[in-house]
């Protein structure tokens, strides 16, 4: 495997490396293969300028930034551990893969091109309660849920798009979970004006755990947007209520937890 430093936004088929907290484990476990790693730290913007956040900004830098919305700051603070947040980047966080143990252990599941979702009949207490009919994986990013709720826009080396459109629910014909194109690089996030926002997270211990359920809520004027982490194969924009949830036998508790956190998040927005 070769490592080169990026001098432009062209990846030329290489795999971009920033903090490496997700990429390196995937390479080591053999889930991801790469001939060339491209160190993009020199070309991806880092830092906060007005309402623009460079995709190379670390989670630690964001959790300490007073000027960004509460939901994003809290999502960063409640993610991972201090060590991971010191190197993990915003862009890398948005592109994390699921923590589904079957997928991480390379079971031949649908996301790996196979014809079965092992979690559905197997061990799925941390899995999805929405859109879990094809693949029950849960999206692990606290930050992605926060940005979806905040209505943020993503700028890449090729286009601009709402953050939510970076993600797709995998299907029989197309197993991908993002819309990222080959050689496309995340560059920055553009935040919208927001009056008040909040991020609440349920996890299995007090720190350093992926969300069982994360709830981001943002209010602008009389419009409130709510997005959830850990409940669907993608960051889940909550439209309506939980009627459409399709929990599996051992993860129905997530519906209860999500309802409670949504109620609290809305109350917190109103209190402001």
């Amino acid at each position, binding site marked *: 495997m070769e490592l080169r430093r990026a001098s432009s936004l062209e990846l030329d088929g290489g795999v971009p490396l920033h903090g490496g907290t997700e990429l390196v484990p995937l390479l080591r476990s053999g889930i991801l293969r790469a001939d060339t790693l491209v160190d993009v730290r020199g070309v991806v913007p880092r830092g906060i300028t007005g309402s623009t956040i460079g995709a190379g900004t670390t989670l630690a830098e964001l959790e300490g930034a007073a000027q960004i919305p509460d939901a994003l700051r809290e999502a960063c603070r409640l993610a991972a*551990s201090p060590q991971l947040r010191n190197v993990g980047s915003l862009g890398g966080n948005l592109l994390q893969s699921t*923590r589904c*143990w*079957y997928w*991480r*252990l390379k079971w031949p599941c649908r996301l790996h091109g196979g014809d079965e979702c*092992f979690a559905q*009949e*197997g*061990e799925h*207490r941390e899995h999805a309660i929405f859109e879990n009919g094809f693949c029950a994986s849960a999206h692990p990013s606290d930050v992605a849920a926060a940005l979806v709720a905040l209505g943020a826009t993503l700028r890449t080396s090729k286009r601009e798009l709402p953050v939510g459109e970076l993600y797709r629910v995998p299907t029989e014909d197309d197993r991908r979970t993002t819309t990222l194109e080959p050689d496309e690089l995340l560059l920055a996030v553009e935040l919208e004006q927001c009056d008040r926002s909040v991020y609440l997270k*349920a996890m*299995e*211990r*007090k*720190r*350093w*755990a992926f969300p*069982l359920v994360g709830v981001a809520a943002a209010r602008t004027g009389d419009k409130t947007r709510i997005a959830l982490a850990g409940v669907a194969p993608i960051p889940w924009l909550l439209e309506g209520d939980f009627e459409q949830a399709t929990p599996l036998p*051992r*993860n129905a*508790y997530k519906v*209860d*937890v999500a309802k*409670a*956190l949504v*109620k*609290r998040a809305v109350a917190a927005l109103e209190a402001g």
Partner: protein
Amino acid sequence: MARLIRTEKEVEGRYEEVWLVVEEDALEQWPAGPREIVGRPAARIDGLERARGEAVYTADLKLPGMLHAAVLRSPYAHARVARIDLAPALALEGVHAAIGPGELDVLVEECGFQGAAIAAVCADTYEQARSAVAAIEVEWEQLEVLIDPDEAVARGQLLGEPRLRSRGDFERGLAEADLVVTGEYSTQVVLHNSMETHQAVVQWLGDSLEIYISTQYIWGIRDEVASTLGLPADKVRVVCHYMGGGFGSKNGADDYTFIAIELAKRTLRPVRCALTRREENLATGNRNATIQRLTIGARSDGTLTALGGDYVNATGWGGWSSPVEGPMQMLYACDNVKTTTWAAKINQPPMKAFRAPGFVEGTFGLESLLDVLAAKLDIDPLELRRRNYADHDASDSRPYSGKNLLECYRRAEPHWERRHEVRARSTETVKRGVGMASQIWYGGGGPPSYAWVRVGSDGRATVITAMQDIGTGTRTAMAQIAAEELGIPLDHVLVSLGDSARGPFASISAGSSTTPSMGPAVRAAAADARRQIEEIAAQRGTPEAPLAEIVGLLEDAQILGKGGRGPNPAGMQVLTFGVQVAEVAVDVETGEVWVDRIAAVHDVGRVINPLGASSQIEGGIIQGIGHTLSEHRLHDPRTGQILTTGLDAYKLPTFADVPEIVSELIDEPDTQLTNLGSKGLGEPPIVPTAAAISNAIRDATGAEVHELPISREEMLRALREAAAKEKVGAPAGV
């Protein structure tokens, strides 16, 4: 003088009758209370070298020319190797040797669990060894898996006969009861996950073998390896100077040691076999899951009339049946007790001892159900326990060598009284409560164990014994005992340990036995040295002269004291006791549980180092909180394959999960036990933690949890169940 006795030997609740040669123990115990050095807090004498990274652990060791081994393990829970070809591995660069099924006892063809070792390779680098293992070609024949422990019991697929223990007449006891409560409790598989993974570095020197290993039992490794290889035991030298934790999982030599030995033999090079964190999560033992179906009968005044338990240990493909029924048999006075314990042989990795094996699990079930009884009888839980206090061993009528559980209860009262104030801080969504649970466990240690003490003309002493310090602070405690006995400052004592070639036999560090086994031997050796120094002083006509003055005359001469561990008191039961009081908060909407505070009061006899003791209590409670709330080794229910293989998915507690911990020790020497009156404290603090937390949850919410870990799913289920009961009106009694 040595003496031959017939005695009962206990390790972690397992007894055997043995002949033992023991040393007489003629020393009087010191009076109770802190001495000059013993009984006063001492920072670890090896703390700085550990903190600076200077302490050499097995994991740090690099011998010249050392090769690295990697192990091929079964990916399936039950499978047979139909064909294996090691040639592709041997063809790779840097590879020196490869061994497969049948070439060693620990390399098997039929694997009864995921993680069973089938082949191993050694190479110049670890990366080369891993690549070579990946290159081995294997055709697997997958076999039917049996994972459900109840199903294994129904089919009679057991490890050994069911263990039936009965006293009195259980049925009659039920008939005499005014109230009978029943409950089914289950506990999960949890892992030791020591910071230092299981590993050994081995080299042959002619026909002698040197084994550097992360172990809890230097001498056990020596004897196990010698007998397996047919070597005289003194041809095997075992070294462990520093050790990164074991918790019961490093009592034996295991596959990695024998793999390193064989590969070292074949290559004539030193070989390291160090397991990865993933292997640690598969194949190095666990606290097995249990199912406990319990019945308690009591009179309306709270007197227990019947205790019954059907226990299933989901033992795995090997291991032994842990004494999960022990607390029910031993904790309370009750005339009619009947327990049956099955060990289900299932296609899961074998259990190993894990910090009070069986008693942690059994205490959770028993003490949880006891609080259900207390609530139904409307008796204060602490009072209920006092009313059923056992004043002699409840299981076999022997007197206790010492028991201060009532004093523990008394000292726990101020913590227990906080419950009114704690409950009052509840809100609509966050309910708070306080719960308690009692602790019973072994921890008396036993003979044999030996120590030497060497005193030179500089007035400094070295304690020499081939024991191991598994991270518990043993070095410091032994130095304190020697310094106290010799009357010299603590920093004048060195402790030389960790090498079977440099010192006499010392006990296993398991079953909370290191301090009670080794401490008396060290004191006896120091006393022997002191007696010799006093004799010299008397000859000189200055019997009152200070030690430094007398040894100052020695020049190159040295005083050599030796001491051995005397016998345990005949016909007595030596046990440790305690109580913990937990304060929790439960978010009744999200099922989140916080532990705010745990107060622990334990009775382990004389305390050698109060600072080390409080560390042990904190460590036990933190590990207990992980067991109670977040740790869970998960497997796929269809294939039995393990799903949590790293510390991302297997959730140990973090510092943020650690509550305020208040630790108190009775510090009353056990007058019957050795020249110190000290018992062990490694295991007692983890025993009652889960039960205290579950009882606090019940106090806070009325919800009865039945399953560990108390996940959000289990917490919300219990809350729903409690709400439904309240709606129909709580049934009063039976």
